[in-house]
Protein backbone atom coordinates (compact mmCIF):
# COMPACT_ATOMS: atom_id res chain seq x y z
CA UNK A 1 0.00 0.00 0.00
CA UNK A 2 2.71 2.35 1.06
CA UNK A 3 4.81 1.39 -1.92
CA UNK A 4 1.94 1.98 -4.28
CA UNK A 5 1.38 5.42 -2.81
CA UNK A 6 5.01 6.24 -3.26
CA UNK A 7 4.82 5.12 -6.87
CA UNK A 8 1.79 7.27 -7.51
CA UNK A 9 3.48 10.28 -6.02
CA UNK A 10 6.56 9.78 -8.14
CA UNK A 11 4.45 9.53 -11.24
CA UNK A 12 2.53 12.66 -10.31
CA UNK A 13 5.65 14.71 -9.72
CA UNK A 14 7.14 13.41 -12.94
CA UNK A 15 4.15 14.50 -14.98
CA UNK A 16 3.93 17.72 -12.99
CA UNK A 17 7.50 18.64 -13.85
CA UNK A 18 7.39 21.83 -15.78
CA UNK A 19 8.57 21.92 -19.31
CA UNK A 20 11.49 24.22 -19.94
CA UNK A 21 9.45 26.52 -22.17
CA UNK A 22 6.83 27.05 -19.49
CA UNK A 23 9.50 27.74 -16.91
CA UNK A 24 11.04 30.44 -19.08
CA UNK A 25 7.70 32.07 -19.87
CA UNK A 26 6.80 32.00 -16.20
CA UNK A 27 10.09 33.56 -15.14
CA UNK A 28 9.86 36.29 -17.74
CA UNK A 29 6.30 37.09 -16.67
CA UNK A 30 7.18 37.23 -12.98
CA UNK A 31 10.23 39.39 -13.56
CA UNK A 32 8.23 41.80 -15.73
CA UNK A 33 5.54 42.05 -13.08
CA UNK A 34 8.05 42.60 -10.29
CA UNK A 35 9.67 45.41 -12.26
CA UNK A 36 6.29 47.03 -12.87
CA UNK A 37 5.35 46.67 -9.21
CA UNK A 38 8.56 47.82 -7.61
CA UNK A 39 10.19 50.18 -10.09
CA UNK A 40 8.20 53.31 -9.18
CA UNK A 41 9.17 52.92 -5.54
CA UNK A 42 12.84 52.19 -6.21
CA UNK A 43 12.96 55.15 -8.56
CA UNK A 44 11.39 57.52 -6.05
CA UNK A 45 13.66 56.20 -3.31
CA UNK A 46 16.74 56.93 -5.43
CA UNK A 47 15.36 60.30 -6.43
CA UNK A 48 14.68 61.30 -2.84
CA UNK A 49 18.42 61.58 -2.19
CA UNK A 50 18.90 64.02 -5.06
CA UNK A 51 18.01 67.64 -5.64
CA UNK A 52 14.89 68.58 -7.53
CA UNK A 53 16.66 69.32 -10.80
CA UNK A 54 17.93 65.76 -10.95
CA UNK A 55 14.64 64.09 -10.13
CA UNK A 56 12.83 66.08 -12.79
CA UNK A 57 15.57 66.49 -15.35
CA UNK A 58 14.68 67.33 -18.91
CA UNK A 59 18.09 66.62 -20.31
CA UNK A 60 18.84 63.11 -19.12
CA UNK A 61 16.92 60.72 -16.91
CA UNK A 62 20.17 59.09 -15.83
CA UNK A 63 20.75 62.17 -13.61
CA UNK A 64 18.53 60.58 -10.96
CA UNK A 65 21.16 57.90 -10.54
CA UNK A 66 24.33 59.83 -11.33
CA UNK A 67 23.21 62.96 -9.45
CA UNK A 68 24.69 65.49 -11.91
CA UNK A 69 23.07 68.58 -10.38
CA UNK A 70 23.31 67.21 -6.87
CA UNK A 71 27.11 67.21 -7.13
CA UNK A 72 27.07 70.80 -8.37
CA UNK A 73 24.73 72.03 -5.66
CA UNK A 74 25.83 70.09 -2.60
CA UNK A 75 29.18 68.59 -3.47
CA UNK A 76 28.15 65.00 -2.78
CA UNK A 77 26.34 62.43 -4.86
CA UNK A 78 23.67 61.97 -2.22
CA UNK A 79 21.94 64.58 -0.15
CA UNK A 80 19.53 64.37 2.74
CA UNK A 81 18.16 67.84 2.08
CA UNK A 82 14.75 66.59 0.99
CA UNK A 83 14.39 64.58 4.19
CA UNK A 84 15.48 67.49 6.34
CA UNK A 85 12.90 69.66 4.66
CA UNK A 86 10.15 67.10 5.17
CA UNK A 87 10.96 66.51 8.82
CA UNK A 88 11.55 70.05 9.91
CA UNK A 89 9.66 72.36 7.58
CA UNK A 90 6.97 69.93 6.49
CA UNK A 91 6.33 68.91 10.11
CA UNK A 92 6.43 65.29 9.11
CA UNK A 93 6.79 64.13 12.70
CA UNK A 94 3.49 65.75 13.59
CA UNK A 95 1.61 63.92 10.81
CA UNK A 96 3.43 60.70 11.64
CA UNK A 97 2.49 60.95 15.31
CA UNK A 98 -1.17 61.51 14.47
CA UNK A 99 -1.17 58.62 12.01
CA UNK A 100 0.31 56.28 14.60
CA UNK A 101 -2.22 57.31 17.26
CA UNK A 102 -5.18 56.95 14.89
CA UNK A 103 -3.99 53.61 13.49
CA UNK A 104 -3.35 52.13 16.92
CA UNK A 105 -6.74 53.04 18.35
CA UNK A 106 -8.73 52.23 15.23
CA UNK A 107 -7.19 48.76 14.93
CA UNK A 108 -7.62 47.97 18.62
CA UNK A 109 -11.21 49.14 18.88
CA UNK A 110 -12.19 47.64 15.50
CA UNK A 111 -10.80 44.24 16.39
CA UNK A 112 -12.41 44.28 19.82
CA UNK A 113 -15.86 45.21 18.54
CA UNK A 114 -15.53 43.12 15.39
CA UNK A 115 -14.55 39.97 17.25
CA UNK A 116 -17.51 40.30 19.60
CA UNK A 117 -19.89 41.04 16.75
CA UNK A 118 -18.53 38.39 14.39
CA UNK A 119 -18.68 35.68 17.05
CA UNK A 120 -22.21 36.60 18.05
CA UNK A 121 -23.43 36.73 14.47
CA UNK A 122 -21.92 33.41 13.45
CA UNK A 123 -23.36 31.59 16.45
CA UNK A 124 -26.73 33.29 16.46
CA UNK A 125 -29.57 30.97 15.45
CA UNK A 126 -31.88 33.85 14.62
CA UNK A 127 -32.82 35.05 11.19
CA UNK A 128 -31.97 38.68 11.91
CA UNK A 129 -28.27 37.84 12.03
CA UNK A 130 -28.47 37.18 8.31
CA UNK A 131 -30.08 40.56 7.74
CA UNK A 132 -27.43 42.35 9.75
CA UNK A 133 -24.72 40.76 7.64
CA UNK A 134 -26.42 41.70 4.37
CA UNK A 135 -26.85 45.26 5.63
CA UNK A 136 -23.18 45.34 6.54
CA UNK A 137 -22.33 44.25 2.99
CA UNK A 138 -24.45 47.05 1.55
CA UNK A 139 -22.78 49.55 3.87
CA UNK A 140 -19.39 48.28 2.73
CA UNK A 141 -20.36 49.12 -0.84
CA UNK A 142 -20.97 52.79 -0.22
CA UNK A 143 -18.17 55.20 -1.05
CA UNK A 144 -16.92 56.62 2.25
CA UNK A 145 -17.07 60.15 1.00
CA UNK A 146 -20.85 59.96 0.57
CA UNK A 147 -21.07 59.86 4.34
CA UNK A 148 -18.81 62.86 4.79
CA UNK A 149 -21.49 65.45 4.25
CA UNK A 150 -23.65 63.48 6.66
CA UNK A 151 -20.94 63.73 9.29
CA UNK A 152 -19.74 67.26 8.65
CA UNK A 153 -22.98 69.05 9.34
CA UNK A 154 -23.79 67.54 12.76
CA UNK A 155 -20.12 67.73 13.72
CA UNK A 156 -20.01 71.42 12.89
CA UNK A 157 -23.13 71.97 14.96
CA UNK A 158 -21.67 70.04 17.90
CA UNK A 159 -18.27 71.63 17.30
CA UNK A 160 -16.40 68.35 17.52
CA UNK A 161 -14.88 68.30 14.06
CA UNK A 162 -11.17 68.21 13.30
CA UNK A 163 -10.07 66.41 16.46
CA UNK A 164 -8.50 62.98 16.75
CA UNK A 165 -11.17 61.13 18.81
CA UNK A 166 -13.84 61.99 16.24
CA UNK A 167 -11.61 60.69 13.46
CA UNK A 168 -11.00 57.46 15.35
CA UNK A 169 -14.67 56.82 16.10
CA UNK A 170 -15.72 57.54 12.52
CA UNK A 171 -12.97 55.32 11.07
CA UNK A 172 -13.90 52.47 13.41
CA UNK A 173 -17.53 52.75 12.35
CA UNK A 174 -16.68 52.87 8.64
CA UNK A 175 -14.41 49.83 8.95
CA UNK A 176 -16.92 47.87 10.99
CA UNK A 177 -18.78 46.17 8.08
CA UNK A 178 -15.61 44.74 6.57
CA UNK A 179 -14.18 43.66 9.92
CA UNK A 180 -17.47 41.98 10.70
CA UNK A 181 -17.49 40.05 7.43
CA UNK A 182 -13.89 38.88 7.74
CA UNK A 183 -14.21 37.83 11.37
CA UNK A 184 -17.61 36.24 10.83
CA UNK A 185 -16.08 33.66 8.50
CA UNK A 186 -13.46 32.78 11.09
CA UNK A 187 -15.84 31.48 13.72
Amino acid at each position, binding site marked *: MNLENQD*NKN*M*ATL*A*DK*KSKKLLII*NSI*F*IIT*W*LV*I*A*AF*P*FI*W*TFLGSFKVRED*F*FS*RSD*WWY*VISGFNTIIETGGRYTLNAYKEAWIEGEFWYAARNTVIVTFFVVTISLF*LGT*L*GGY*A*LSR*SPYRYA*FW*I*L*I*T*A*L*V*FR*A*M*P*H*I*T*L*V*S*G*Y*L*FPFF*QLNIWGILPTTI*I*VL*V*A*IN*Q*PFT*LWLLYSFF
Partner: protein
Amino acid sequence: MLPTCVAMVLFIAIPIVSIFVQSLFIEHQKPTIEIEICDPFGCKKEIGVDVEAYAAMNKEKPLGRFNGFKTYIDRNHLAFKELYEGWSNSKTFSEFSRTFFNLPFYKALIFTLTYTLFVTPFVICLGFIIALSINALSQKIKGPTIFVTILPMIVTPLMGSLVLFWMIDAEGIIGSTIQDLFNDPYLSLKASTKLTWITLITYGIWHHSPFAFIVFYAALQTVPQDPIEAAIIDGADRWQRIRHVVIPHLYPVAVFIALISMMDNIRVFEPILGFSAEASAQSFSWLIYNDLRNIEVMNFGSAASTSILTIIMVGILLTPVLIKTWREFGESR
Protein backbone atom coordinates in the same frame (compact mmCIF):
# COMPACT_ATOMS: atom_id res chain seq x y z
CA MET B 1 -22.84 42.14 18.57
CA LEU B 2 -24.62 45.05 20.19
CA PRO B 3 -21.69 47.48 20.13
CA THR B 4 -21.03 46.71 16.44
CA CYS B 5 -24.64 47.29 15.55
CA VAL B 6 -24.78 50.49 17.56
CA ALA B 7 -21.64 51.75 15.85
CA MET B 8 -23.00 50.90 12.41
CA VAL B 9 -26.39 52.44 13.06
CA LEU B 10 -24.94 55.55 14.67
CA PHE B 11 -22.23 56.26 12.13
CA ILE B 12 -23.52 54.77 8.91
CA ALA B 13 -27.30 54.53 9.00
CA ILE B 14 -27.96 57.86 10.71
CA PRO B 15 -25.59 59.81 8.45
CA ILE B 16 -27.44 58.39 5.44
CA VAL B 17 -30.72 59.70 6.83
CA SER B 18 -28.95 62.95 7.62
CA ILE B 19 -27.62 63.39 4.08
CA PHE B 20 -31.06 62.63 2.73
CA VAL B 21 -32.56 65.36 4.87
CA GLN B 22 -29.76 67.74 3.94
CA SER B 23 -30.26 67.04 0.27
CA LEU B 24 -33.77 68.46 0.50
CA PHE B 25 -32.48 71.82 1.65
CA ILE B 26 -30.52 74.54 -0.03
CA GLU B 27 -28.59 77.50 1.34
CA HIS B 28 -30.57 80.66 2.11
CA GLN B 29 -30.96 83.31 -0.47
CA LYS B 30 -28.67 86.07 0.54
CA PRO B 31 -30.76 88.96 1.86
CA THR B 32 -29.91 92.16 0.10
CA ILE B 33 -29.73 95.62 1.50
CA GLU B 34 -29.31 99.02 -0.07
CA ILE B 35 -26.23 100.80 1.07
CA GLU B 36 -25.46 104.41 0.37
CA ILE B 37 -21.86 104.94 -0.49
CA CYS B 38 -20.84 108.57 -0.36
CA ASP B 39 -17.66 110.02 -1.69
CA PRO B 40 -16.70 113.64 -2.33
CA PHE B 41 -18.48 113.55 -5.70
CA GLY B 42 -21.87 112.54 -4.42
CA CYS B 43 -23.74 109.57 -3.08
CA LYS B 44 -24.48 106.31 -4.89
CA LYS B 45 -26.89 103.62 -3.89
CA GLU B 46 -25.55 100.11 -4.14
CA ILE B 47 -27.08 96.79 -3.42
CA GLY B 48 -25.03 94.55 -1.19
CA VAL B 49 -25.42 91.48 0.93
CA ASP B 50 -26.83 92.02 4.37
CA VAL B 51 -24.25 90.01 6.24
CA GLU B 52 -25.87 90.30 9.66
CA ALA B 53 -29.29 89.21 8.51
CA TYR B 54 -27.71 86.33 6.60
CA ALA B 55 -25.87 85.14 9.71
CA ALA B 56 -29.07 85.40 11.71
CA MET B 57 -30.95 83.35 9.15
CA ASN B 58 -28.24 80.70 9.20
CA LYS B 59 -28.35 80.56 12.94
CA GLU B 60 -32.10 80.17 13.02
CA LYS B 61 -32.28 77.51 10.33
CA PRO B 62 -28.79 76.06 9.86
CA LEU B 63 -29.93 73.66 7.15
CA GLY B 64 -31.08 76.43 4.86
CA ARG B 65 -34.43 76.71 3.19
CA PHE B 66 -36.49 73.77 2.08
CA ASN B 67 -36.02 72.97 -1.56
CA GLY B 68 -37.63 69.56 -1.97
CA PHE B 69 -36.24 67.45 -4.76
CA LYS B 70 -35.27 70.47 -6.85
CA THR B 71 -31.58 70.04 -6.05
CA TYR B 72 -31.75 66.58 -7.61
CA ILE B 73 -32.87 67.83 -10.97
CA ASP B 74 -30.80 71.01 -11.24
CA ARG B 75 -27.98 71.42 -13.72
CA ASN B 76 -25.33 69.92 -11.47
CA HIS B 77 -27.22 66.69 -10.84
CA LEU B 78 -29.76 64.92 -13.00
CA ALA B 79 -30.34 67.99 -15.18
CA PHE B 80 -33.59 66.81 -16.76
CA LYS B 81 -34.33 70.24 -18.20
CA GLU B 82 -30.92 70.59 -19.84
CA LEU B 83 -31.13 67.06 -21.21
CA TYR B 84 -34.55 67.74 -22.67
CA GLU B 85 -33.42 71.01 -24.24
CA GLY B 86 -30.27 69.40 -25.56
CA TRP B 87 -32.31 66.59 -27.08
CA SER B 88 -34.78 68.84 -28.82
CA ASN B 89 -32.22 71.43 -29.98
CA SER B 90 -29.56 69.17 -31.36
CA LYS B 91 -29.97 67.70 -34.81
CA THR B 92 -27.42 64.93 -34.70
CA PHE B 93 -26.62 62.42 -32.02
CA SER B 94 -23.05 63.67 -31.61
CA GLU B 95 -24.37 67.14 -30.91
CA PHE B 96 -26.55 65.73 -28.17
CA SER B 97 -23.72 63.72 -26.71
CA ARG B 98 -21.67 66.88 -26.44
CA THR B 99 -24.40 68.47 -24.29
CA PHE B 100 -24.58 65.22 -22.35
CA PHE B 101 -20.85 65.16 -21.58
CA ASN B 102 -20.85 68.78 -20.46
CA LEU B 103 -23.19 68.05 -17.57
CA PRO B 104 -21.08 67.32 -14.49
CA PHE B 105 -23.18 64.46 -13.16
CA TYR B 106 -23.18 62.49 -16.40
CA LYS B 107 -19.51 63.22 -16.98
CA ALA B 108 -18.76 61.67 -13.60
CA LEU B 109 -21.13 58.79 -14.29
CA ILE B 110 -19.40 57.90 -17.55
CA PHE B 111 -15.93 58.11 -16.05
CA THR B 112 -16.81 56.09 -12.95
CA LEU B 113 -18.48 53.39 -15.03
CA THR B 114 -15.64 53.19 -17.56
CA TYR B 115 -13.08 53.00 -14.79
CA THR B 116 -14.95 50.26 -12.93
CA LEU B 117 -15.76 48.21 -16.03
CA PHE B 118 -12.17 48.29 -17.30
CA VAL B 119 -10.30 47.90 -14.04
CA THR B 120 -12.32 45.08 -12.44
CA PRO B 121 -11.91 42.35 -15.12
CA PHE B 122 -8.26 43.21 -15.70
CA VAL B 123 -7.59 43.06 -11.97
CA ILE B 124 -9.18 39.62 -11.71
CA CYS B 125 -7.28 38.21 -14.70
CA LEU B 126 -3.92 39.72 -13.80
CA GLY B 127 -4.27 38.74 -10.15
CA PHE B 128 -5.10 35.16 -11.14
CA ILE B 129 -2.14 34.86 -13.53
CA ILE B 130 0.27 36.31 -10.97
CA ALA B 131 -1.04 33.95 -8.31
CA LEU B 132 -0.57 30.95 -10.64
CA SER B 133 2.97 31.90 -11.59
CA ILE B 134 4.06 32.68 -8.04
CA ASN B 135 2.51 29.43 -6.88
CA ALA B 136 4.79 27.59 -9.31
CA LEU B 137 7.95 29.26 -7.97
CA SER B 138 10.32 27.47 -5.62
CA GLN B 139 9.77 27.96 -1.93
CA LYS B 140 12.90 30.02 -1.39
CA ILE B 141 12.06 32.99 -3.57
CA LYS B 142 8.31 32.97 -2.91
CA GLY B 143 8.50 35.21 0.18
CA PRO B 144 10.37 38.19 -1.31
CA THR B 145 8.38 37.91 -4.55
CA ILE B 146 5.09 38.13 -2.67
CA PHE B 147 6.35 41.12 -0.72
CA VAL B 148 7.28 43.04 -3.87
CA THR B 149 4.01 42.01 -5.51
CA ILE B 150 1.84 43.52 -2.82
CA LEU B 151 3.85 46.75 -2.64
CA PRO B 152 1.48 48.71 -4.93
CA MET B 153 -1.39 47.79 -2.63
CA ILE B 154 0.09 48.45 0.81
CA VAL B 155 1.29 51.89 -0.15
CA THR B 156 -1.61 54.31 0.32
CA PRO B 157 -3.37 55.18 -2.95
CA LEU B 158 -2.55 58.85 -2.70
CA MET B 159 1.18 58.16 -2.40
CA GLY B 160 1.18 55.50 -5.11
CA SER B 161 -0.56 57.80 -7.54
CA LEU B 162 1.74 60.71 -6.67
CA VAL B 163 4.82 58.59 -7.30
CA LEU B 164 3.48 57.59 -10.71
CA PHE B 165 2.40 61.16 -11.38
CA TRP B 166 5.97 62.38 -10.92
CA MET B 167 7.20 59.70 -13.27
CA ILE B 168 4.75 60.50 -16.07
CA ASP B 169 5.49 64.20 -15.75
CA ALA B 170 7.02 65.57 -18.96
CA GLU B 171 10.29 65.79 -17.05
CA GLY B 172 9.93 62.46 -15.28
CA ILE B 173 11.28 59.21 -16.62
CA ILE B 174 8.17 57.67 -18.19
CA GLY B 175 6.89 60.96 -19.57
CA SER B 176 10.13 61.87 -21.31
CA THR B 177 10.66 58.31 -22.58
CA ILE B 178 7.23 58.36 -24.20
CA GLN B 179 8.03 61.71 -25.78
CA ASP B 180 11.22 60.26 -27.21
CA LEU B 181 9.46 57.14 -28.42
CA PHE B 182 6.85 59.08 -30.35
CA ASN B 183 9.32 61.80 -31.23
CA ASP B 184 6.89 64.48 -30.07
CA PRO B 185 8.27 66.90 -27.48
CA TYR B 186 4.79 68.23 -26.68
CA LEU B 187 3.16 64.90 -25.99
CA SER B 188 1.85 64.89 -22.45
CA LEU B 189 -0.12 62.20 -20.68
CA LYS B 190 -1.92 64.89 -18.73
CA ALA B 191 -3.10 67.01 -21.61
CA SER B 192 -5.72 64.97 -23.41
CA THR B 193 -8.79 63.43 -21.85
CA LYS B 194 -8.25 60.05 -23.46
CA LEU B 195 -4.66 59.71 -22.28
CA THR B 196 -5.61 60.80 -18.76
CA TRP B 197 -8.31 58.14 -18.63
CA ILE B 198 -5.90 55.49 -19.87
CA THR B 199 -3.34 56.57 -17.27
CA LEU B 200 -5.91 56.42 -14.47
CA ILE B 201 -7.18 53.00 -15.56
CA THR B 202 -3.63 51.64 -15.82
CA TYR B 203 -2.94 53.00 -12.36
CA GLY B 204 -6.12 51.34 -11.08
CA ILE B 205 -5.08 47.96 -12.45
CA TRP B 206 -1.58 48.37 -11.02
CA HIS B 207 -2.96 49.31 -7.62
CA HIS B 208 -5.72 46.70 -7.30
CA SER B 209 -4.14 43.59 -8.83
CA PRO B 210 -2.17 42.70 -5.67
CA PHE B 211 -5.44 42.45 -3.76
CA ALA B 212 -6.84 39.92 -6.25
CA PHE B 213 -3.48 38.16 -6.15
CA ILE B 214 -3.54 37.72 -2.37
CA VAL B 215 -7.04 36.28 -2.29
CA PHE B 216 -6.38 33.99 -5.27
CA TYR B 217 -3.06 32.86 -3.84
CA ALA B 218 -4.65 31.96 -0.51
CA ALA B 219 -7.41 30.10 -2.35
CA LEU B 220 -4.90 28.23 -4.54
CA GLN B 221 -3.46 26.66 -1.39
CA THR B 222 -6.85 25.05 -0.71
CA VAL B 223 -7.21 23.44 -4.14
CA PRO B 224 -7.54 19.72 -3.41
CA GLN B 225 -4.64 17.67 -4.75
CA ASP B 226 -6.62 14.49 -5.50
CA PRO B 227 -8.56 15.72 -8.55
CA ILE B 228 -5.38 17.29 -9.92
CA GLU B 229 -3.50 14.01 -9.60
CA ALA B 230 -6.44 12.21 -11.17
CA ALA B 231 -6.35 14.69 -14.03
CA ILE B 232 -2.63 14.10 -14.49
CA ILE B 233 -3.19 10.36 -14.68
CA ASP B 234 -5.94 10.97 -17.20
CA GLY B 235 -3.39 12.75 -19.32
CA ALA B 236 -4.58 16.31 -18.87
CA ASP B 237 -1.96 18.92 -19.62
CA ARG B 238 -1.26 21.92 -17.44
CA TRP B 239 -3.74 24.20 -19.19
CA GLN B 240 -6.54 21.62 -19.05
CA ARG B 241 -5.91 21.06 -15.36
CA ILE B 242 -6.20 24.78 -14.69
CA ARG B 243 -9.27 25.11 -16.88
CA HIS B 244 -11.23 22.15 -15.53
CA VAL B 245 -10.04 21.71 -11.95
CA VAL B 246 -8.56 24.93 -10.59
CA ILE B 247 -10.89 27.53 -12.11
CA PRO B 248 -14.15 25.82 -11.04
CA HIS B 249 -12.72 25.52 -7.55
CA LEU B 250 -11.80 29.22 -7.45
CA TYR B 251 -15.05 30.47 -8.98
CA PRO B 252 -16.67 31.61 -5.69
CA VAL B 253 -13.44 33.41 -4.79
CA ALA B 254 -13.52 35.22 -8.12
CA VAL B 255 -17.08 36.39 -7.41
CA PHE B 256 -15.93 37.70 -4.03
CA ILE B 257 -13.03 39.58 -5.60
CA ALA B 258 -15.31 41.02 -8.27
CA LEU B 259 -17.69 42.27 -5.59
CA ILE B 260 -15.02 43.89 -3.42
CA SER B 261 -13.06 45.39 -6.28
CA MET B 262 -16.19 46.84 -7.90
CA MET B 263 -17.04 48.45 -4.56
CA ASP B 264 -13.55 49.91 -4.38
CA ASN B 265 -13.44 51.07 -7.98
CA ILE B 266 -16.74 52.91 -7.86
CA ARG B 267 -15.37 55.08 -5.09
CA VAL B 268 -12.28 56.02 -7.12
CA PHE B 269 -11.04 59.30 -5.70
CA GLU B 270 -7.41 59.49 -4.59
CA PRO B 271 -5.86 58.83 -8.01
CA ILE B 272 -7.82 61.75 -9.42
CA LEU B 273 -6.29 64.03 -6.80
CA GLY B 274 -2.87 62.40 -7.11
CA PHE B 275 -2.76 62.74 -10.88
CA SER B 276 -4.38 66.21 -10.76
CA ALA B 277 -6.80 64.85 -13.32
CA GLU B 278 -9.95 66.62 -12.15
CA ALA B 279 -10.17 68.65 -15.35
CA SER B 280 -10.75 65.66 -17.59
CA ALA B 281 -11.77 62.87 -15.24
CA GLN B 282 -14.28 63.35 -12.45
CA SER B 283 -15.87 60.66 -10.38
CA PHE B 284 -18.85 60.81 -8.03
CA SER B 285 -16.55 60.98 -5.05
CA TRP B 286 -14.74 63.91 -6.58
CA LEU B 287 -18.03 65.77 -7.17
CA ILE B 288 -18.91 65.44 -3.49
CA TYR B 289 -15.43 66.51 -2.45
CA ASN B 290 -15.66 69.48 -4.78
CA ASP B 291 -18.85 70.66 -3.08
CA LEU B 292 -17.33 70.42 0.37
CA ARG B 293 -13.71 71.44 -0.01
CA ASN B 294 -14.26 75.14 0.42
CA ILE B 295 -14.76 75.53 4.14
CA GLU B 296 -16.36 78.98 3.73
CA VAL B 297 -19.12 78.00 1.30
CA MET B 298 -19.95 74.37 1.72
CA ASN B 299 -22.75 73.20 -0.50
CA PHE B 300 -24.22 70.69 1.89
CA GLY B 301 -27.38 70.36 -0.14
CA SER B 302 -25.60 69.69 -3.39
CA ALA B 303 -23.07 67.31 -1.84
CA ALA B 304 -25.83 65.45 -0.06
CA SER B 305 -27.89 64.97 -3.21
CA THR B 306 -24.84 63.72 -5.11
CA SER B 307 -24.24 61.32 -2.22
CA ILE B 308 -27.79 60.00 -2.36
CA LEU B 309 -27.60 59.59 -6.13
CA THR B 310 -24.26 57.80 -5.76
CA ILE B 311 -25.70 55.41 -3.21
CA ILE B 312 -28.57 54.64 -5.57
CA MET B 313 -26.12 54.10 -8.45
CA VAL B 314 -23.98 51.76 -6.35
CA GLY B 315 -27.11 49.90 -5.36
CA ILE B 316 -28.16 49.41 -8.99
CA LEU B 317 -24.70 48.33 -10.10
CA LEU B 318 -24.16 45.85 -7.31
CA THR B 319 -27.65 44.34 -7.22
CA PRO B 320 -26.81 41.27 -9.37
CA VAL B 321 -23.73 40.40 -7.33
CA LEU B 322 -25.52 41.14 -4.06
CA ILE B 323 -28.45 38.89 -4.94
CA LYS B 324 -26.01 36.11 -5.80
CA THR B 325 -24.20 36.47 -2.48
CA TRP B 326 -27.54 36.60 -0.73
CA ARG B 327 -28.67 33.30 -2.25
CA GLU B 328 -25.44 31.43 -1.57
CA PHE B 329 -25.29 32.85 1.88
CA GLY B 330 -28.92 32.10 2.69
CA GLU B 331 -28.48 28.49 1.61
CA SER B 332 -25.42 27.96 3.73
CA ARG B 333 -27.14 29.11 6.87
